[in-house]
């Protein structure tokens, strides 16, 4: 090769993306919102552990925690958390048919059936937990 010849490297073009790019479009914001539901899953896990701790300490500690949980601001906060967790549940279950391909023999179970199955599982799990905690 001619020693004076230099390979041509076009300057890499990289568009700068603003840090909050996902706020500019509704669907992007919803995507990021869905991803952030994980933070509230972690919060709920922590609160469950705190509740177990209070219960292990005895009735007084448990009643004290229930009093705190019953204050209006905390109730409002937890209703919000519940809404966010429902958003997680719905978006998660709606993705199930895309992530899971069930085969019976060599026939594919239709996506709608997989979806309905997951929602049925949600209803069943909700029922069992509610029964265990309330009516047992």
């Amino acid at each position: 090769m001619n020693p004076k010849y230099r390979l041509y490297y076009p300057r890499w073009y990289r568009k700068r993306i603003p840090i909050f790019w996902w706020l500019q479009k509704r669907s992007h914001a919803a995507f990021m919102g869905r991803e952030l539901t994980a933070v509230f899953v972690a919060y709920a896990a922590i609160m469950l552990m705190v509740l177990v701790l209070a219960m292990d300490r005895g009735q007084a500690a448990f009643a004290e925690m229930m009093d705190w949980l019953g204050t209006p601001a905390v109730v409002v906060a937890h209703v919000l958390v519940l809404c966010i967790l429902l958003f997680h549940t719905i978006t998660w279950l709606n993705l199930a048919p895309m992530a899971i391909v069930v085969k019976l023999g060599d026939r594919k179970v239709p996506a709608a059936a997989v979806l309905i199955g997951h929602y049925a599982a949600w209803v069943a799990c909700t029922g069992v937990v509610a029964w265990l905690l309330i009516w047992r």
Partner: protein
Amino acid sequence: MRRSREPIIWALFGGGGMASALFMPVLILVLFIAMPLGWVQGVQGAPFAELQALVRHPLTRLGLFVFISLCWFHWAHRFRYTLYDGLQLSHLNELVAVMTYGIAIAGTVVGAVLLWGVG
């Protein structure tokens, strides 16, 4: 060739996502909203003893442990990629991964201590 850890991490993420999707709404609704507001019994007398017995049952403890741990790994994986996409931090890959999965492991250990060390 070094085998990727991604499938294990993804399985923990997926398991946590499914477990929390199926169980978290009802747990929050009953334990953190309905019970404190007195819509369902659970504080006075016998109901508390029953609830405590339920929570002290070894199977409940084991179930709670698996559930809590999966929730942590679900959070870790999702939050890791949220930091990459949302805040464009993929260049901090190692740091972010160690932080998020480290917190998940810590959450699992703390869960184990709380569930078996105190009861």
